């Protein structure tokens, strides 16, 4: 077990692609860190550099305090789990799991004992004599896990280990991974595409974009206090709503009405080069049916009327989609997110996703009065994506002083 430190680590491929740019990251001993980001942002490359499967172009990588830039993978004592499982097709499950131990020249008895132990933990005992070709996806995945844990390495590196499984199995395996990591307490770096995995699995989440780290922190912190537009849009499902907001007379003109701004944001906007146009971000759960709000809560927000487009009843609450007039928010980050997420951001007009209480009698086609929480609003600078409402790492909403 060990800590992993990336010190200005960069990767430039021979063809000139800079896949990872000056990444600084400290992973504590026993920590479970998730790397997320859109496709091609350099997650796998980062992981491969930690594993030693890719050379580091510049910067320093330390495992357990020792610089390992020039060490071969087998000298780093890390175990890796691949999306494709990478099981040796010519070996049985037992042989697959024993392979790293055999290479480490352990004696037969110890090998057998360790394999049996790992097999028991992962419920693979009955399958030990099968070949990988005769296993289901979930079983193969568990064998790949088994091969990683038998050796008690310094760290686990996992590159989208669950993304080849169907949804149900993925949920199951997620808990297996989580439990296993807690039990073993091994430092883990886990690459994923999946929102839910990122939010639920790790101690800390690292969000990457174009080879650079955007923000590092516990999942809830990233969710509540995104440092920039990209993080805000990437984390959360359904994702944050983004609206165009024009600064006029100390107010924000938006499709939801005139939004007042607090002292601090006002000061930010007073500078000569301050943007006159902002992007307002608000998460679906910060809306509520205006009928269901008590006066105390009402005072903290604003209300608007809009036609209801679609109602999705989830049982516990309702996802209600509104169309609102007005300009669409536009920024490079949003386009990138849209490209990665498919249709999420690309709807026509301004689409608003809200999460209302299940008690709301809202129906499709009607006009509905909706309240939203001003304290939970984020304001972003469209030119650089910076979150203007953030103060000392905390988001204070539009009204913050």
């Amino acid at each position, binding site marked *: 077990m060990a800590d992993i430190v990336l010190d200005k680590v960069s990767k430039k491929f021979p063809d000139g692609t800079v896949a990872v740019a000056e990444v600084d990251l400290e992973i504590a001993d026993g920590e479970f860190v998730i790397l997320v980001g859109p496709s091609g942002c350099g997650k796998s490359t980062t992981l491969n550099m930690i594993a030693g*499967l890719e050379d580091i172009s510049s910067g320093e990588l330390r495992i357990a305090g020792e610089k390992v830039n020039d060490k071969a993978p087998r000298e780093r004592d890390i175990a890796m789990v*691949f999306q494709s499982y990478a099981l040796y097709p010519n070996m049985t499950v037992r042989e697959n799991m024993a392979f790293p131990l055999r290479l480490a020249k352990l004696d037969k008895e110890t090998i057998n004992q360790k394999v049996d132990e790992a097999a028991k933990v992962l419920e693979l005992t009955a399958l030990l004599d099968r070949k990988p070709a005769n296993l289901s996806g979930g079983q193969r995945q568990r064998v790949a896990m088994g*091969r990683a844990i038998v050796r008690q390495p310094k760290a686990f590196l996992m590159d989208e280990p669950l993304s080849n499984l169907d949804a149900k*199995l993925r949920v199951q395996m997620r808990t297996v991974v989580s439990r296993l990591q807690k039990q073993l307490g091994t430092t883990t770096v886990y690459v994923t595409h999946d929102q839910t995995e990122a939010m639920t699995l790790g101690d800390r989440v690292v969000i990457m974009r174009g080879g650079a780290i955007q923000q590092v922190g516990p999942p809830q912190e990233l969710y509540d206090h995104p440092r920039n537009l990209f993080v805000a849009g990437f984390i959360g499902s359904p994702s944050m709503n983004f609206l165009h907001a024009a600064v006029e007379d100390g107010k924000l003109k938006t499709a939801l009405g005139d939004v007042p701004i607090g002292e601090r944001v006002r000061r930010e906007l007073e500078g000569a080069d301050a943007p006159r146009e902002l992007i307002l971000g608000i998460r679906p759960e910060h809306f509520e049916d205006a009928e269901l709000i008590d006066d105390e809560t009402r005072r903290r927000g604003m209300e608007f009327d809009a036609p209801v487009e679609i109602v999705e009843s989830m049982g516990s609450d309702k996802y209600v989609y509104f169309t609102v007039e007005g300009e669409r928010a536009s920024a490079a980050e949003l386009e990138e997110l849209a490209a990665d997420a498919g249709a999420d951001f690309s709807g026509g007009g301004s689409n608003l996703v809200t999460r209302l209480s299940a008690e709301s009698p809202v129906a499709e086609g009607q006009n509905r009065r909706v309240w939203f929480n001003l304290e939970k609003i984020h304001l972003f600078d469209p030119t650089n994506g910076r979150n203007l409402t953030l103060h000392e790492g905390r988001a204070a909403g539009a009204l913050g002083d």
Partner: protein
Amino acid sequence: MSVNATPAGADVAADETATGTAGRHAAVPAQRSGRAPKTPLSENKRAERKLGWLLCAPAALVMLLVTAYPILYSIWLSLQRFDLRFPAEREFIGLENYVTVLTNEFWWTAFGVTMLITVVTVAVELVLGMGLALIMHRTLVGRGIVRTAALIPYGIVTVVAAFSWRYAWTPGTGYLANVFGEGAPLTERASSLAIVMLAEIWKTTPFMALLLMAGLALVPEDLLKAASTDGATAWQRFTKVMLPVMKPAILVALLFRTLDAFRVFDNIYVLTAGANETSSVSMIAYNNLIRGLNLGIGSTMSVLIFLTVAIIAFVFVKLFGTAAPGSDDGERR
């Protein structure tokens, strides 16, 4: 074959229910055991099989017309005393020709020479070809040039190449004649055979490399990465991961080359013309059939060569489980 008999199959079903994907993989064992149980085929399956036969039929028909007739005709000839110099003595003699050939020491010498050439050239080609394939697979810059350069020997007509070897080894004019001291290497048995094998290897190693490179492409990159992180050295990755995964491709390459090498003819014909007991079986069959005009004995030898080749192919396919590379390999093991 059918690794999964009933108990294992039942196990799959049980386990699948447990992990919540029942049915998705349960069908595999049944399909795998293929020919064992004669379960009635579904309508769909039968139609599919019929279509398969229909699609093969034209090719199979042409094959039969082109190859079956000559094969049957040589078998017929091999059962007769039939020497074109004495056409009047033509007569059906059963297996007498076979007795004549199989008790003849020239036949067995040639057989030994052929075997020697086959085993040595195929073994050396395998090693060299593997090295070449690895180089071609790994080179990043000038990939096209490297591959083209490696394939040049294979592109040259064998007879032409053989002549250039012959001139190279000819005393007085050849640039290689004196590398092993004075003397004419092509006039001694051992050195002649060595030169024949050298020419063969030089010529067909690229072909071997090409087949093996197709096999290398079958080894997933992730597998080698996994082996690296599991602690394997480069050599261990090669022997414990690459070779086993490539096995089907290697076997196919070996089969092709063995069959080819066993019929070695052109190089010997040009380099030694069979002098000093360097004839291969193909050479003496040719000598009897075309030069000696003894159709009976010549055909007998041809049939024997055909049988040997068939046995080699049978051994490869049945005993080593050679299959087309990339076909479901889980099935054969």
